[in-house]
């Protein structure tokens, strides 16, 4: 036998992609049928650079060590009533939002990566996607287990997967991932691996975990730390896929650019929920949404797009609008939920005076001018015993499915409306970005399952909003919804803490 030893790279190649072979007896296109319809040109899968080199034995070993530690913490957390250590019961609503809105996306990621992990013709890419698939299953399951203890002591966690399929605001994240999974395999990777995991993850996953760290939530933050090395692998996959596609063929560049434009805007719209979580739902703040956007998108993302310029990739379309939006979205989003707090599966509230001052300080250009007066009015009404809820159902944007409550960014007193006619029907949008996405693929977005339309069409049970919430959403009315003040969550907290 020859004495030459394999280097790590060659060894990994032998242990992964060399397992595959050129078919002789069946049509390989029949085995991998979805690779061509998006117009992406792959000339040579062997040029794929493995973003990480992890064989299964090492994977099992590392992951088992992490799981063992994680579950030891979960056990200790439950045994010692760890939920009593959170800052105050308002915080728990941030993780209700996480379990109902984000964890089901981890599940969809498991499914989506399983799909591409089977469908890509290149074994190197397949194996990387398969590992991400099983990682994502890990994430949804450990999140369910992390929240399991909270579910025993707080309302609003209990029917998370039923809610995710039905509740009006949860159609925002659900449609986001449905959109990615229903796309072709390469768009899925640009959407989730690149735009989401690589460009925007520090603005979704990380704020929730930092929020947990700042608010005494040991279960969630331990999950966050445990998932960190998985996320790092996922990010390297995001970077590899974009380089690979751009280097494979110049015709891929405009297609990839179009997807970056689309998924950047889809992503920022979905992140408006995170924005309000950071600015309004965390009793101990991490940083303002505006600061987070500046650090994680404008600085880090800006550097990334400078790197990509050599491939002919430019900044995402409508990026200049996000520069203005960072001053407004969190305030507008929380206001929507405060107004519709009777129809939300978590509690809402008016920021405390101290928090209002913090917001004034963090948003010197906009908060006192546009948003503080609203909260002062809400405070006055609440003091008079007139906490109000908006009964009318809002119109939804056909693309992002957020209620039409965002304003023109140059005139925050004017709600933004856009509309397009397709096949004789008029469709409504919250922004130029969402209208643009629709107009590029109208045949896709006309299918949107818009919760408010569906309620009006009688597809969500009862005739009244209350019946829909109770019977179709299966919310425990008076417990899951409404203001935190007077909620069973608040009452129990006071009993535990021995305060009147």
């Amino acid at each position, binding site marked *: *036998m020859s004495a030459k030893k394999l280097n790590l790279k060659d060894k990994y190649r032998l242990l992964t992609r060399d397992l595959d072979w050129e078919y002789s007896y069946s049509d390989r296109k029949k085995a991998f049928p979805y690779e061509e319809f998006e117009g992406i040109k792959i000339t040579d899968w062997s040029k794929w650079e493995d973003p990480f080199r992890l064989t*299964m034995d090492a994977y099992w*070993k590392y992951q088992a060590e992490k799981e063992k530690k994680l579950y030891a913490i979960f056990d200790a957390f439950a045994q010692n009533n760890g939920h009593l250590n959170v800052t105050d019961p308002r915080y728990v609503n941030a993780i209700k939002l996480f379990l109902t809105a984000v964890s089901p996306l981890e599940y969809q990621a498991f499914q989506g990566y399983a799909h591409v992990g089977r469908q890509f013709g290149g074994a190197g890419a397949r194996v990387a996607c398969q590992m991400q698939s099983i990682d994502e299953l890990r994430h949804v399951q450990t999140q369910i287990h992390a929240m399991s203890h909270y579910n025993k002591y707080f309302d609003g966690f209990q029917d998370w997967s039923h809610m995710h399929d039905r509740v009006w605001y949860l159609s925002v994240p659900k449609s986001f991932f449905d959109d990615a999974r229903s796309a072709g395999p390469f768009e899925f990777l640009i959407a989730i691996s690149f735009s989401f995991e690589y460009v925007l993850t520090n603005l979704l996953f990380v704020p929730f975990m930092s929020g947990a760290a700042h608010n005494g939530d040991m279960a969630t933050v331990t999950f966050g730390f445990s998932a960190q090395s998985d996320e790092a692998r996922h990010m390297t996959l995001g970077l590899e896929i974009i380089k690979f596609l751009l280097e494979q063929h110049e015709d891929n560049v405009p297609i990839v650019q179009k997807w970056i434009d689309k998924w950047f805007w889809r992503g920022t719209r979905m992140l408006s929920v995170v924005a309000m979580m950071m600015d309004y739902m965390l009793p101990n703040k991490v940083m303002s949404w505006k600061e987070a956007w500046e650090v994680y998108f404008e600085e880090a993302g800006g550097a990334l797009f400078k790197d990509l310029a050599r491939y002919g990739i430019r900044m995402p379309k409508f990026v200049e609008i996000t520069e203005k939006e960072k001053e407004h979205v969190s305030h507008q989003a929380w206001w929507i939920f405060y107004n519709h707090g009777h129809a939300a599966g978590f509690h809402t509230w008016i920021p405390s005076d101290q928090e209002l001052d913090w917001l004034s300080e963090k948003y010197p250009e906009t908060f006192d001018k546009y948003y503080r007066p609203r909260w002062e009015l809400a405070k006055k009404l609440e003091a008079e015993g007139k906490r109000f809820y908006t009964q009318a159902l809002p119109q939804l944007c056909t693309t992002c499915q957020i209620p039409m409550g965002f304003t023109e960014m140059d005139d925050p007193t004017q709600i933004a409306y856009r509309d397009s006619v397709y096949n004789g029907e008029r469709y409504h949008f919250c922004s130029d970005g969402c209208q643009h996405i629709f107009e590029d693929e109208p045949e896709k977005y006309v299918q949107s399952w818009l919760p408010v339309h569906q309620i009006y069409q009688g597809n969500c049970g009862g005739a009244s909003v209350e019946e829909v919430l109770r019977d179709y959403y299966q919310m425990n009315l008076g417990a899951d919804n409404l203001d935190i003040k007077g909620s069973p969550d608040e009452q129990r907290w006071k009993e535990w803490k021995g305060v009147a």
Partner: protein
Amino acid sequence: MTIEIKTSTLEPIRNTYANIERRFGDKPATRYQEATYDLQAETNFHYRPLWQPDKELNDKTRTKIVMEDWYALKDPRQFYYGAYVQQRAKMQEQAENNYAFFEKRDLQAYLSESSKEKIIRFLIPVRHIEHTANLNNMYACSFGYGTALTQALVYNAMDRLGIAQYLSRIGLLIDGNSGDSLIQAKEHWMQDPIWQGVRALCEELTTVEDWFEVMLAQNLVMDSLVYELFIDQLDQALNAEGARDIAMLLEFMQQWNKETTRWFDSVIKTVASESAANAEQMSIWVKHWRAKAAEAFAPVIHALFDETSLQQALTLLDNRSRKAGLTL
């Protein structure tokens, strides 16, 4: 006397998530239950897949098999991710010790040339079959329905990648880490006439559309034959000719196969007992793929063993099928 640490007990307002309570009643649930049931979206999908516009994203009609509740296919091993990786980590630790021992003691030096040749021609090519098993389980995972089954399928798919890698490492152990044995074994896989039927069958399996059929053909038909012949019987044959140290390199696969068979037999039994139509459809598939596999494996098995070996493996397959309620 026992030591009793006083902790403060708070009365919980519920024992588990509402979906688990609806299924099993208001009592504390296991981690497997909370991490398994009803995770997959059931309704109100927004867009049809561009790659399959006649289906929803999650769609029960991607197979001819009909189940009232796909979550009936629970895993007797109760594997959720954490339980799964911890079980595999234990097995890999043992395997790692075995492989390290084999290398440290240079046990390949005690293998005869004919044993090495046998390993390269008959055992190492199985890594390509396992690669197909990886694809097929991933296929069933991505198109299958209900987390109870699909999570077990992703575990299985990753196991197959792991097993293909262990088989490759056997090659690296006997070729001094040069990769030459893997190249030779692949030559056999690609060119050797005795392997071409199996290779053609593997290729064909990756083009079958119905995910349940793919899963059944792979995890029942193919695995019954492959593990009986190339993992168990070949191990015994090598043992008989003095190459007994190979056994420690195959322990992982043998243990894995035993455990996985238990899971998959319970899956097919539950599906077959759901309805006569299911049992009939599964029987049709098993007969179809059994016949193809028997033909495909014959040349390679005849080059390796006598007539009875393949028959023995087919009998094993038939017994598993009958036990699950299929008629052949």
